[in-house]
């Protein structure tokens, strides 16, 4: 491989017959699809039959890195996973951090493709040319974190993608973590691994070298980025609080509950409690960072009673979960005790491997609502009383992950559960698009670019990434700030007049450009969390790409490559049966959300104008029209 930044090979592993094949990365493919999500999509189009059963041996797990992985570019940590999802039959693009991308490339592989099904439980180890399928019967049955610990004892230094119990039981709402921190595989990657009898993928430290085309230029550019990051006004506090620093004030007036029909308020004033929780969090937190990340948003938190838990990033709303009567409520206890309980919930759900944000929380609320309404009874739940307490929530986690009793009905997600419950329940499921919940109700926040992404794309990671950075995560930012963001994201100057007016912007059209920008992060192997991506522009990415690869690329060249990948990904999902008809917003968005003090209705980004279904249809039409442009 003459192009810098690549290890130079794709590794193919067939679990059915143990076949191993190492194929050189094609240079033309690299130039066209760059890497990560780009090459993953290209490989998925070629390798995965669109009508294949997601849990059959013919499905493939494709893990991809990009040209930034293996270098010291800050935030170059991401591994992209692509597979056919057992949850919705689509092809999610789900990325995660940790050190996996660097370790995989250290053995000489940019991408890994796993097909087939092992006759018995195995885990895959990769160390240079030593590719081994090892018996996993002694770790089968362990949770994801214990599996990672046990395998690390045997193969350290390494990076590990294990599965927990939910993956073993092929729960479609399963997820997993890289190195006990970086969540990966929303939409059931862990279930696909389980269906293949694959307990873990282990990238050991190899001996291979990653060369870059212009080392001095790269060094200079990275120094400039680091200077900005070190000067970031929140960095000092983030070193103590991690991602919670960003969400420390973020406790909404209540939690959207009862099938998205009601805002259940906190019974207590949360302002003092928030401050206490933040201090507790900082006191017990040890920093964990993905490869090359200077912001350390992963948490290891020591529990007051001993032991510690890991999480990809504890947010304030979840730290305060036991105060909310909506889900996971505890009537009594000090702030420290309650935070301890919240962390134990995180720990359990992470270890067992369920997708909390986009599947489990909404699903738990849904079945509890059915129970409250008498639509299901103890006869349906195997004797389990479904209330909104903490203990019930933990029971639901356990039985769902293990498919035990009533959990068997829940393990494949809300649409499957509703179908199996019957009695017309399917018709009342709300706030679900393409089988997953919209995690941030737009009636509370205003309709943001990320909501459009969640309507359009199966798999939530890229849905969120389609936002236009910080201003579009919260409504009402001044238009000049949005314009600056658009320029940073590579919107051509000639298009600005088309996308912006003096006091507003075209959300559907702008979303396409946000996708182009953040899609590139997924192709390059770069983290797109706000506190990393804010230091990059399309111009910066193009400069780094040229310095690493030696390919002279402009910002526009990269934008075109990203557009190509988005369209190919759309084609991939179209081949699985998805059309624009699947983009329809949930009916509940157009009904008022009842809160204790007010009703919340769906409004535009500036919270000035109430939106109708016709408005959303307009955004979608404009999005697709803009996407069709070069």
């Amino acid at each position: 491989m003459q192009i810098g930044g690549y290890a130079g090979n794709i590794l193919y592993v067939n679990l059915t017959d143990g076949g191993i094949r190492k194929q050189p990365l094609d240079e033309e493919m690299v130039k066209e699809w760059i890497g990560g999500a780009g090459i993953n999509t290209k490989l998925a189009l070629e390798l995965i039959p669109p009508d294949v059963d997601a849990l059959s041996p013919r499905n493939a797990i494709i893990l991809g890195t990009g040209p930034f992985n293996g270098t010291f570019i800050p935030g170059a940590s991401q591994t992209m996973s692509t597979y056919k999802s057992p949850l919705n039959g689509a092809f999610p693009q789900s990325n995660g951090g940790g050190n996996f991308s660097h370790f995989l490339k250290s053995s000489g592989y940019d991408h890994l493709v796993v097909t087939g099904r092992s006759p018995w439980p195995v885990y895959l180890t990769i160390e240079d040319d030593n590719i081994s399928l090892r018996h996993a019967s002694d770790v089968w049955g362990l949770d994801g974190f214990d599996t990672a610990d046990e395998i690390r004892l045997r193969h350290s230094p390494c990076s590990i993608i294990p599965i927990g119990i939910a993956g073993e039981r092929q729960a479609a709402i399963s997820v997993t973590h890289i190195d006990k921190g970086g969540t990966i595989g929303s939409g059931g990657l862990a279930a696909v691994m389980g269906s293949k009898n694959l307990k873990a993928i282990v990238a050991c430290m190899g001996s291979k070298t990653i060369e870059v085309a212009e080392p001095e230029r790269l060094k200079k550019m990275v120094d400039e980025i680091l200077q900005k990051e070190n000067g970031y006004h929140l960095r000092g506090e983030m070193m103590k609080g991690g991602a919670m620093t960003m969400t420390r004030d973020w406790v909404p007036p209540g939690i959207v509950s009862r099938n998205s029909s009601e805002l259940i308020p906190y019974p207590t004033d949360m302002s003092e409690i928030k401050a206490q929780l933040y201090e507790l969090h900082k006191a017990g937190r040890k920093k964990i960072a993905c490869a090359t990340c200077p912001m350390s948003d992963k948490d290891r938190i020591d529990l007051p009673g001993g032991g510690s838990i890991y999480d990809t990033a504890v947010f304030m709303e979840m730290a305060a979960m036991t105060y909310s009567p909506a889900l996971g409520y505890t009537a009594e206890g000090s702030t420290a005790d309650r935070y301890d309980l919240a962390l134990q919930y995180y720990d359990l759900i992470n270890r067992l491997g369920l997708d909390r944000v986009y599947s489990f929380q909404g699903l738990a609320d849904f079945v509890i609502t059915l129970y409250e309404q008498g639509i299901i009874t103890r006869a349906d739940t195997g004797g389990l009383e479904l209330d909104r307490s903490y203990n019930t929530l933990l029971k639901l986690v356990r039985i769902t992950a293990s498919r035990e009793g009533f959990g068997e009905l829940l393990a494949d997600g809300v649409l499957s559960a509703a179908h199996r419950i019957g009695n017309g329940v399917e018709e009342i499921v709300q706030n679900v698009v393409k089988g997953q919940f919209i995690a941030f109700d737009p009636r509370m926040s205003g309709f943001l670019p990320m909501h459009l992404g969640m309507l359009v794309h199966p798999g939530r990671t890229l849905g969120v990434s389609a936002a236009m950075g910080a201003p579009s995560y919260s409504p009402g930012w001044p238009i000049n700030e949005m314009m600056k963001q658009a320029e940073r994201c590579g919107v051509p100057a000639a298009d600005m007049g088309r996308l912006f007016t003096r006091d507003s912007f075209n959300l559907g059209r702008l979303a396409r450009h946000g996708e182009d920008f953040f899609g590139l992060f997924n192709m390059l192997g770069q983290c797109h969390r706000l506190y990393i991506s804010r230091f990059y522009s399309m111009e910066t990415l193009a400069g780094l790409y040229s310095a690493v690869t030696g390919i002279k690329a402009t910002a526009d060249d990269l934008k075109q490559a990203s557009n190509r990948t988005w369209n190919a990904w759309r084609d991939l999902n179209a081949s699985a049966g998805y059309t624009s008809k699947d983009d329809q917003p949930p009916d509940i968005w157009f009904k008022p959300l009842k809160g204790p003090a007010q009703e919340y209705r769906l409004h535009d980004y500036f919270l000035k104008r109430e939106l109708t279904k016709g408005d959303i249809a307009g955004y979608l039409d404009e999005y697709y029209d803009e996407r069709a442009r070069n």
Partner: protein
Amino acid sequence: MATKVIKDRRSIAADPSKCAGCITCMLRCSFRIDNKFNLSLSRIQVDRQVARDNEFEISFTADCDACLICARYCPYGALTATKEENEEKTG
């Protein structure tokens, strides 16, 4: 436990309790050698310790010449150049 490497008058003190495991030091070290990235050739090695619930272990190979590049780029203050190096700079 802190690890210290001393070569000539330069020294690096390592405090694993501050390490977040980002392996920036390893990438900087190997890059400094020949402008290439190779984790296995890095003269500083960072690994997770399972027994201590993922505390990190920092070690230096025998051929580490205490060039201090790892300390210069550690984002978390886990690696620091100690007094001898400062004296050399100012002296």
